[in-house]
């Protein structure tokens, strides 16, 4: 009797199992080979990347820097008007050429080793070195030992050491340059402004992370200095100067009093935070057609500021020329949205920060 075709005989089962096992082994072998190949390819790519990285120099202008939305270069030519808008959308590259003084070879590098012998050693002539190139003076800027010269940009970290004290032309940084300057490094008066009179009595709003600006604590500049002890303080004051409109004052008297206010700021810093490096900044140009604060008066005040900075030997950032066009007016595209001829917008403050970074206070 023949077995039922449906019955599985042990002999038939062993043959099928062996075939199955064989197939499985083949599949596993293939997968293992594939996996091994993948690993080898991956390491190969890694090694190749490392080799290529060593050959290519680092990019000198990183696209963005940590801590902010990026600080793209801004066109700084007098005749070009940088676009305004959100950070990171600026076009054009800076055409500022920073000429750094050549580093001369030091004598130590060529000194011959001393010998204990009593015989005099032959005198070697020091190598002939070119004198360092003088720093480049910004065009249109007065020549003065206190005016800060252009230098290499120390980078965004520099601003972490800098505090800004000023009137509404500084307060605007909180709105238009908040990606570049931390709000707690901006000292402005109540209402966002300060008149440059009786300056030691004037209050500033002490930055607060929680409250709105109107509710910030009001303290004197002296108290702010004692609290913050800034490494660098840049003071931009003087566009609000009520004596200028006082018909009973002469320009001579206005100058005397203006310079006394500069001195008062200087004394306040020295008395309350002597380790702070103080620098003044010129009043920005205005647009004559849009404001009653004419450039002729601004120029005069900047002249007084320069005179007092020279008398006190305090650095002065002469950004005034940098911020103006060929007619000495504020570059139009730097003016804030309400076009008052005085206050700066995002593009304007970017230019200011560019200037500050390329004229670091040492």
């Amino acid at each position: 009797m023949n077995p039922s075709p449906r019955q599985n005989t042990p002999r038939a089962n062993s043959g099928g199992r062996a075939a199955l096992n064989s197939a499985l082994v083949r599949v596993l072998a293939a997968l293992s080979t594939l996996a091994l190949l993948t690993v080898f390819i991956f390491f190969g790519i890694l090694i190749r990347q490392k080799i290529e990285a060593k050959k290519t120099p680092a990019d000198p202008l990183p696209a963005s820097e940590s801590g902010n939305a990026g600080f793209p270069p801004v066109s700084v030519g007098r005749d070009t008007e940088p676009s305004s808008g959100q950070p990171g959308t600026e076009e054009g590259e800076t055409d500022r050429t920073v000429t750094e003084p050549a580093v001369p070879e030091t004598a130590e590098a060529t000194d011959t080793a001393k010998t204990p012998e009593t015989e005099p050693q032959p005198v070697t002539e020091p190598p002939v070195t070119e004198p360092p190139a003088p720093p480049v003076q910004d065009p249109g800027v007065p020549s003065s030992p206190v005016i800060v010269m252009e230098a290499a940009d120390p980078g965004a970290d520099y601003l972490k050491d800098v505090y800004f004290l000023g009137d509404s032309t500084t307060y605007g940084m909180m709105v238009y340059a908040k990606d570049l300057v931390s709000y707690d490094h901006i000292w402005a008066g109540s209402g966002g402004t300060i008149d440059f009179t009786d300056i030691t009595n004037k209050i500033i709003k002490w930055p607060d992370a929680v409250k709105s600006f109107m509710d910030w604590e009001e303290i004197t500049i002296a108290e702010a200095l004692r609290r913050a002890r800034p490494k660098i303080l840049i003071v931009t004051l003087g566009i609000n100067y009520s004596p200028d409109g006082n018909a009973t004052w002469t320009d001579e008297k206005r100058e005397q009093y203006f310079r006394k206010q500069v001195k008062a700021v200087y004394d306040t810093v020295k008395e309350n935070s002597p380790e702070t490096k103080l620098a003044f900044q010129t009043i920005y140009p205005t647009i004559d057609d849009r404001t009653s604060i004419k450039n002729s008066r601004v120029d005069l005040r900047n002249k007084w500021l320069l005179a007092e900075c020279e008398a006190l030997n305090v650095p002065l950032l002469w950004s005034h020329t940098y911020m103006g066009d060929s007619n000495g007016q504020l570059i139009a595209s730097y003016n804030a949205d309400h076009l008052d001829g005085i206050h700066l917008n995002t593009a304007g403050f970017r230019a200011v920060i560019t200037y500050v970074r390329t004229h670091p206070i040492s």
Partner: protein
Amino acid sequence: MKKILCSLLSAILLFSLFACASASYRADVAVKTLADAAEPKISKASNLANASDDFMEFFLGVGADKYDDAIVRTPTGALSIDEYAIFRVKNEADAAAIRALLETYLTGRRSSWDGRYNASEKPKLDNAKTFVYGNYVGYTILSQSEQSAFLSALENALKH
């Protein structure tokens, strides 16, 4: 006729007594005491600080030789223009001289008014005035109501 003459003489006596009474102020009160009495009438007094010597010299033009006691309180911020000064002088002539200087100061303030940040404060400057109470002379730049209260408190503190 007699009745008319009596009435006339009584009226003259009454007016003369009234005149004498209104001109009598103390001359020995420290200006700080007066400020303590009057300054609470200013709602934003916390915004005031003692003016610097440079302010006295440049803005008021009042030399130290013209008074023997003074307090000048000026605003610390841009939003309020409340301000006042009280000088104690030696005699009426000095009071008149200082008053003239303070009037010049107020004129200069009005001519240099910049209302970009505090236009609503202008009425205070328009309302600003100088005052003299015996040997005390000064000025206020305050709202109408606060000025009245301030001067009233000042005058009361100076009465015998």
